């Protein structure tokens, strides 16, 4: 195992970190940068609780090694709000009760944000397909889908 010196931008803040070559991005965010909004669920790419954006593309942070993000831009759930103001996606989840226990919510919000960045007016089917990599055991998904539809409307008005 070797140490690697990496530079990365997380939520618009530049970091220089000494990482172990075997750390995952998820461990790096939670245990070394204190960004515990990103959750660990299955740790093998099935559940989406650890979803972050790497260079604006949604990715499972449990399946990325820390040195892989050298020079890359990472966005976590902590980076969605702007100076304390929730993003339209966050507001929509709150107002549509798109969550119950909340464990999957950071992953869903990142996945929804990435989806709406690429496709501002998704159909219900497209929302369900593109969020299929995020599991929720509480809501039954309907309120999450409604939250994303509402977020799309909010974004189109903003």
């Amino acid at each position, binding site marked *: 195992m070797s140490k690697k010196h990496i530079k990365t931008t997380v939520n618009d803040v530049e970091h220089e970190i000494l990482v172990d070559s075997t750390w995952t991005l998820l461990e790096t965010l939670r245990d070394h940068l204190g960004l515990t909004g990103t959750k660990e669920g299955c740790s093998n790419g099935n559940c989406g609780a650890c979803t972050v954006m790497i260079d604006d593309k*949604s990715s499972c942070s449990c399946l990325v090694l820390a040195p*892989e993000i050298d020079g890359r831009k990472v966005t976590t759930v902590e980076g969605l709000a702007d100076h304390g103001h929730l993003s339209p996606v966050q507001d929509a989840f709150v107002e549509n009760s798109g969550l119950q226990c909340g464990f999957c919510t950071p992953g869903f919000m990142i996945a929804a944000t990435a989806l709406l960045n690429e496709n501002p007016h998704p159909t219900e089917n497209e929302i369900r397909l593109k969020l*299929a990599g995020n599991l929720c055991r509480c809501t039954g998904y309907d309120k999450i889908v409604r939250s994303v539809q509402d977020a799309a409307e909010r974004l189109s008005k903003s």
Partner: protein
Amino acid sequence: MPNFDYEAPTSLKTALGFLSGNGEIRPLAGGTDVIDQLKSNRRNADLVVDLKRVPELLDLELDEGRLRIGAAVSCTEVHNLTSENDCFPALSEASELIGSIHIQNRASIGGNVCNAAPSADTIPPLLVHEAVAHTASATGEREIPLIDFFAGPGQTVLQKGEILKELVLPASSPNAASAYLRFIPRNEMDIAVAGVGSLIEVEPSSNIVKKARIALASVAPTPVRAYAAEQFLEGSTADKTTIEEAADLAVQAAVPITDVRGSAEYRKELVKVLTKRTLNICVERLA
């Protein structure tokens, strides 16, 4: 996670130098299989060589209909290019089926091939489009027709120190169409119980099938071609009767196992149904 070193070379030559070293050396592209395998001790590594900074392996080029896919190019990029240009439809469909969008954004088509799962969704489409694997090692390069690339579940013919450099798909005839379908018990995020890719090329004046290619996933230790069904279709007209017969013949190429995903008998039935459906889609696409 085993203890390993990590290198991210920025040239192919340096990468091949690392790969020809001693010990267990693991190339890394998207990592969606490899990192999970390392974590669960299904594969070991002394050194992980990240190939995502090697320019040749990130090339994705559509040139006069010929598609070159660098080994580290993501499923999302391949899906976007092929759907925007309306080409290689079977591959376009399969690259949007693997795992979730979060997986497709990282996972490479080259990695799907090198991981060599019998169920890999992109392999039947690559086979029906007659992909050639271009490999590289410190001692030279090779071109291997993809059908000869697989040696068993998780096994390829790559030698120690040799990597897949790119997949090259020859231009498709304007009179050809392809399709890929898999069966899974849910709508998404699952491993194929069986998968079938089909391609037919017709003689436009007569509608007679000039070329037929049918490839199967998840029904043998490696992906396989259904040669008997292909030969039967070539020279005939693709209609209801011949498609039914070809679907029956495709089952001959399937030697499935019974496991938690499905019985051998069920998988053979799936091959028949999916062959019929993919051939019908090809016919619709040609109309």
